[in-house]
């Protein structure tokens, strides 16, 4: 089911200041895909999720799930949370501690008044799906973090909702388990063909899990796109910087040539991936550390070549995380761990034009 959000606003007032948690959000969440709301804490992503599920009341706007308007300030519609028929996995899992696994998972069905035999069948099926077969009688408090997470997922899926919402469900797991669960979750959700809305502040989680990412900042959706588009081809400095580490250099558009855009920076001219901005536009040149190509000295006839001095090198296993000084700019660069370079050595490097990304404010 598609979710349509129109003109959604939610303001908080605290200590005489207005905080715009949702600042005129317009968004269509595609059906049967995994949509992720990504942003730093306080950007409004959780408020948006909670407005969809009905735990938060916006000030203005409209929310439509499928063909049903569940909230509208104009039409004065509010469908209470319990009538929206959604599934949700909470950040704390919210597993009820006084019930066993069976009753936790059966709860949504019991509220629908489903016959007992059918409930049992459905719960068993769902628990098998999340690989918790045989855990029915286990008290909720006797579960590990990962198991609690699966119970929460089973409970969200059991009533076969058309939409399922996730509020940072992996943030309480340790790193290794988080990686595994992420993979599993993606395969569960693609198998089910269900509309999933996922909230996270973890960029790797968003990239690995989503079909579409919506990046939020200060109550606004800044950019929407597939993970690769967001990573390689962001249009805004905030998005480019948030999704991965980048070298950011102020740049001015000089000319459009041969399907490249040429800009002027304090380090000279750069030939960049084409972007349709008028001449003299003030932009930012964004270069990811992994796209800095170190070259043998003198063997360079490529564009965008720079020379500098290796200033720091930190060995982190798969690469050296290093910094190269060029003039008054420090370039972050990822260097082959088997390099013979040392701190203080002169370095020449180049960046391919398709890796020089121009972004606006």
């Amino acid at each position, binding site marked *: 089911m598609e979710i349509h959000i129109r003109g959604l606003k939610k303001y908080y007032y605290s200590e005489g200041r207005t905080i715009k948690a949702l600042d005129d959000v317009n968004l269509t969440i595609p059906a049967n895909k995994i949509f992720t709301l990504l942003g730093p804490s306080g950007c409004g992503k959780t408020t948006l999720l909670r407005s969809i599920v009905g735990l938060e009341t916006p000030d203005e706007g409209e929310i439509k799930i499928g063909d049903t308007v569940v909230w509208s300030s104009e039409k004065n519609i509010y469908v209470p949370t319990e009538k929206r*028929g959604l599934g949700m996995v909470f950040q704390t899992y*919210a597993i009820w*501690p*006084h019930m066993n696994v069976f009753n936790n998972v059966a*709860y949504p069905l019991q509220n629908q008044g489903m016959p007992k035999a059918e409930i049992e069948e459905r719960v068993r099926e769902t628990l098998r799906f999340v690989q918790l077969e045989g855990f029915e009688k286990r008290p909720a408090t006797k579960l590990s973090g990962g198991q609690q997470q699966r119970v929460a997922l089973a409970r969200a899926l059991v*009533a076969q909702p058309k939409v399922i919402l996730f509020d940072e469900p992996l*943030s309480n797991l340790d790193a290794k388990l988080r990686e595994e669960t992420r993979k599993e979750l993606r395969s569960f959700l693609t198998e089910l063909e269900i509309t999933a809305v996922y909230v996270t502040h973890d960029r790797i989680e968003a990239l690995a899990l989503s079909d579409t990412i919506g990046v939020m900042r200060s109550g606004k959706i800044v950019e929407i796109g597939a993970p690769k588009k967001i990573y390689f081809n962001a249009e805004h400095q905030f998005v480019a910087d948030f999704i991965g580490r980048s070298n950011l250099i102020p740049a001015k558009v000089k000319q459009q040539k041969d399907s490249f855009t040429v800009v002027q920076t304090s380090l000279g001219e750069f030939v960049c991936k084409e972007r349709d901005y008028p001449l003299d536009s003030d932009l930012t040149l964004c270069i990811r550390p992994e796209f800095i190509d170190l070259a043998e000295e003198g063997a360079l006839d490529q564009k965008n070549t720079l020379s500098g001095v290796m200033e720091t090198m930190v060995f982190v296993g798969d690469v050296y995380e290093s910094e190269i000084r060029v003039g008054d700019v420090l370039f972050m660069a990822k260097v082959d761990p088997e390099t013979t370079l040392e701190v203080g050595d002169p370095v020449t490097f180049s960046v391919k034009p398709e890796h020089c990304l121009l972004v606006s404010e």
Partner: protein
Amino acid sequence: MVKNRQSKLTYLLIVILALLTLSPVVMLVIGSFSKGLNTFGDFTLAKYISVYTDPSFYAVLGNTLIFVLFSALFSTILALFLAYLNNRTNIPGKFMFKVISVVPMMIPHVLFAVSWALLLNPSNGILNLLLMNIFRLENAPFNIYSIRGMIMVEGLLDLPIAYLIIAPAMASFDISLEESSRVFGAGNMKTLFRITLPVLRPAILAAFILCVVRCLASFAVPSVLGMPGRTYVLATYIYRTVTTGFIADYGKAAAVGMSILILSISLIYVYRYMTRSSEKYVTVSSRGFKPVVIELKKARIPLFVILLIFSFILIMLPILVLLYTSFVPYSMVPSVKAFTSMNLDHWKNVLNDPVSLSSLKNSLFLCIVGASLGTLLSIFISYVIVKVKNKASGILESLSFLSFSFPGIVIGIGFMWFFVRTPLYATIWALLIGYIATYLPYGIRPMTSAFIQIHSHLEESSTVCGASFLTTIRRIVIPLLIPGIVSGWILMATMFFRELSLSVVLSRPGTETMAVQILKFSNDGLWGRLSALGIIMIGISVLLVITANLVGNHFKPETN
């Protein structure tokens, strides 16, 4: 060497604590099988037979059950309601909840009960007279001298205890447990009954059980409000056994006391089990957890008014009634006539009454010396419980917890059997020892939590920084302990100052305490003098708490 000294200290403390807590129990048991105070140890079953074959005893038992269960239920439900309002709604004036949970401790129970008798007694209760005037009634509409009246007053008195247990549980409740219930199709009511209340069940039951134990031990309310209407509960039944009749029958009293004591001890251990198992309901709490507040909308102001009325009833009303009564010559409805005839006669009478003055002296002595000794003992015991942590310290903890369940009047009977055999009988020291033995857990609890706060790393890092042992104690341990010491001292001091149920058994002419003197005034119907003395008592109680707080603040570790 340190270990050796520690274990010596532990065994010394066990001996002291065993003497304090076990001796009255042992004496009570032996006493209940003895023929009389002077024939201690002459075995007989006569006392048990005479008590448990007496049909009137079963009427008393019935009264006790009704009184205890309904009072505890009343307090628990009220506490639940107030805790919910405080933690989960946007009701204004939240500081009131703190007031409700702390201030009533400064008002002695006997005075609270008396103030209700002054308001609602059937012959000349102020409120009754007022209602009769307004509605031209023939009879008083309310009779506080009834089991219903007792339940109401006792329920209000135990409200803070229940609140202090339920409110923290309510505050730490993970709101997403309720939200998820709503997402999965349950409405507000269903969520309340299927999620909220069941998750809070351990705290609710713990509060209820503690209230039951307190009501079982309660003496002030049943004596002031029950005895005039001849409604006896076990506590007052024991009191009657030892105070009326030709000779006081301490054997029979001990035999009755045994059943309260056994019940009380078992309940306290159930309580302990419950509060321990309540830990299993601790859930992962989220980062940036923001408690969702229920918008009260139209109900906001009415609920606030109810809250105001509650605090008024709990705190202001008793004080106002006593103040008023202390100035008017006899019980009358507030009117121009009443206010013009006000005078200081009752105050003069009290201040010239040698017994009242000596009771004031006794109470102050017991409160200040007793609380200080009790706190000192608590420091050592808590130190061993928290820091030494061996098998013996486990025994110490259980022993110190035992007296938590001691109903004052029963333990008083036990001590009576003990002291009568010693030169301490009928001295103030008998009361002092009894107080410390009965109320020690109230000193130990804040001290243990203070000690737990002092992680051994704090002491160790001080040593690493070059401080000597004494410097570490002076600059690290003591400052961190001060809040615990102060709150333990205040708790004990206020309890000692208002102590009644143990005192009525142990005090003799010359060693009356203020609460005993007030009860005597109440029995004699001398309401004016009672009120004057009561106001003095409340005043001193408040002064004590304020002073102790100031002293505590003075020594507090530096904070901004």
